[in-house]
């Protein structure tokens, strides 16, 4: 018997080479609903092993971008390439199969299922057996079930939610549900992770935990991460590149430091009267 220790994520999930190669490329995307422009000419490139953050006021079009990437919305103009392949117009499940996983602003778990079952569902595209085998729980079905359970147990350990393993999601505190949702996205073994306000509504400690999870995912898996959040500290701490949008239009892009001192961003996002604290930013 060997000593058991917490597994690093790349020991249970496929890792990418964090070489900074382009993973997701969006060029000049336009999306309108009955004449209302939701996205107006957004371009961005997400690289492997990097965290890309999108910030902007409420209704700026951040979640719309996510919905375009994951295939929920189909933009009228522009292109979206994932690993070099055109994914514009593909159905959401096809895009998920390619390795794009997401979490939602308002948690979208199955509240009447346990944490374990929700996470196992995240593995469904990694199950390769037929209905008869599944019903009898024999042969391949039993083996795959065990293998997937191992992956899920590794994720439970990573997120430190062992005590909630058998709890129904509906009974859990909000902060824990957020973790479970992140876990389900991880269970899909994604190449690109879309996180829609992962720290919304959390207290300081929960936000710090979430920041640690994101840092560890990026370090241990080397996958690309797109992050949308209102918590500026979180975004500025985690992101390599930040894109600020307002009314669906990109207004600035750059490193967190550049964005923090950008006058347009301060006006749009932080408010007109916001004093500029960064001595390098104002003249």
């Amino acid at each position: 018997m060997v000593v058991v220790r917490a597994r690093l994520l790349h020991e249970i999930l496929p890792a990418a080479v964090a070489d900074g190669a382009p993973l997701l490329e969006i060029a000049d995307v336009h999306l309108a609903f009955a004449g209302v422009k939701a996205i107006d000419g957004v371009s961005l490139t997400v690289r492997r092993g990097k965290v890309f953050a999108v910030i902007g006021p409420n209704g700026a079009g951040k979640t719309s971008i996510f919905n375009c990437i994951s295939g929920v919305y189909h933009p009228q103009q522009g292109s979206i390439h994932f690993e070099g392949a055109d994914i514009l117009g593909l159905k959401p499940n096809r895009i998920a199969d390619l390795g794009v996983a997401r979490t939602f602003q308002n948690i979208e778990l199955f509240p009447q299922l346990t944490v374990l079952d929700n996470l196992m569902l995240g593995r469904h595209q990694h199950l390769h057996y037929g209905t008869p085998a599944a019903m009898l729980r024999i042969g391949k079905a039993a083996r795959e079930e065990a293998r997937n359970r191992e992956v899920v147990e590794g994720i439970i350990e990573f997120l430190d939610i062992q005590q909630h393993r058998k709890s129904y999601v509906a009974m859990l505190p909000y902060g824990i549900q957020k973790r479970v949702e992140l876990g389900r996205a991880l269970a899909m073994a994604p190449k690109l992770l879309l996180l829609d306000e992962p720290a919304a509504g959390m207290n300081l400690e929960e936000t710090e935990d979430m920041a640690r999870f994101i840092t560890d995912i990026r370090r241990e898996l080397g996958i690309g991460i797109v992050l949308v959040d209102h918590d500026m500290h979180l975004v500025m701490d985690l992101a390599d590149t930040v894109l600020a949008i307002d009314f669906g239009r990109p207004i600035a892009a750059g490193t967190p430091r550049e964005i923090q001192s950008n006058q347009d961003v301060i006006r749009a996002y932080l408010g007109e009267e916001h004093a500029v604290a960064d001595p390098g930013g104002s003249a």
Partner: protein
Amino acid sequence: MTTTLPSVGTISPATRLREFATNTPNAIALREKSRGIWREFTWAAFWDQAEAFAHALLAHGIERGDRVAIHSDNRPEWLFTDLGSLAAGAACMGLYPTNPTVEVEYLLKNSGSRLLIVEDEEQADKVLAVPTADLPALEKIVYLEHRGVDAYDDPRLMSWDAFMAEGRAHRETHPHAVEERMAEARPEDLAYLVYTSGTTGPPKGSMITLRNLEFAANEIAGDRGIVQPGPGPDDLIVSYLPLCHIYEKLFSVVFNTGAGVPIHFGESLDTLVADMRDVQPTIVQGVPRIWERIFAAIQVRLASASRLKRVNAAIWLASARYVGRTLVRREGRHTVLSRLLLRVGDVFLFRSLKDRVGLRRIRYGVSAAAPIAPEILQFFMSIGVPLYEAYGMTENCGVATANRPGRIKLGTVGEPYPGCELRLDAETGEILTRHPAVFAGYWNLPEATARTIDADGWLHTGDVGAWVDDTHVKIIDRIKDIIITSGGKNVSPSEIENTLKASPFIKEAIVIGDRRRYLTALIGIDLEVVSEWAQRHKIPHTTYRDLSEKPEVIKLVQKAVDAANEKFSRVEQIKTFRLLTKELDHEEGELTATQKVKRSVIEDKFGDLIESMYR
């Protein structure tokens, strides 16, 4: 067989472990739950790990008497470090997982530890926050969990795997080195440095020797020990109290290597209840706080059950009260009727209650480390959980008194162990003990040692006691905690505090009144229980503070205080109280690492609140 048994030095937990590995190599020594599965270590595997660790220490030049520190939650590696250090002749020093950086610095510096095992990034960060130059003795920091720590570049850092690989390589080239070290062991060798949590002043390192441990093993876990019939491989123990404390050591190390009881490590402290339910241990060591929590959990469960279940519970709890009274009157011995009632009640109620909290198979439960309310003991006895109060301290390696089956006196800590001389100081009533497990003194503090162990070898415990029926000992209080009211009356605050804490709603109680006209109390509510109560009574609430300020909650606590007051004479009654608006915390200095309240800090921090009760 061509192998010869290695020569034996002084008997120690390490030699006992080696013996189990030789005699019953394939029996289970430890189990650990990880990723949802209980994983097993045989005695052979346990010894293999401990021996490899000892070899690694030798490879790093650790000498006899050097200190090896570990900063981790309970897990098998804790015991590999502990037993491996003993095998190498080094002394193991444990830090509490909750120790903040300043305390980590103090303990490492004070002990002069040469090597430190840290569990993960969190604990590594604490020691790395101390400037390297401030810890000149510390040469290596070995980490268990790779996450995060891998990226650090402090030259002292090394992974557990790499460290153990060096140990295995050393074993290849020097196969008899550890054996030779073990043969050099002497009874007076330092085994552990156990830092007392210190409700006053900085922690002091108690020197526990191999002789101390051997005596404790025979007195506590031996054939004439506290568990009857004697403990063995069929018993089960869950390790969950801090392993750096002598109390958990007695169970996780002494019961394990002394009597062969398998030790179980759960997934985390948060999963304790689920882990207990899995294991259903036969021997359970607990502090009053744990027993109070289990008691409160059972009460909440019963109160929120369906009507039919509540009726069923009411019937059998009434029967249990009779059983409890009978047992208390007869010092724990059943009558035919009480045994019958308990058996039947077990079928209808108690078995399922006990199963839920992991006490279905318990045959010996012990409460120690702090006084427990007799009501709680009586409740557990009444539902068939054999729970005994015992008394001991780090300085006597936990060997002083214990209640024994069929000879229980509630409100006492029991009778002295057969091998323990115990007497009360004629003047002060202080409890004095003398036996081979009295420690060797405080680390580098000869004066404090001389104040504690007198010329005749008596250990001065600092506790005031009294004899009950000439056989059992009752603890009055710590000498320094005794309150003398301005009327000149001596009052023991802990007795009142424990009566208050017997209410499931009250988690913390601090009685005030030294040199004052009357007694008052600061009370902290039990967030979980009171919150559940508030929900049932449709009282909306948010935080701990908010809940504590609700008039309904204050009224609820007042009722509990009134009930407690009925049990005391006028001068010992709580005239008024205030609710604490925050939970007490170790990291903020209000509790010791063992969750004992630091009175001086509390009296300082909540001075205004206290004064408001005397205006």
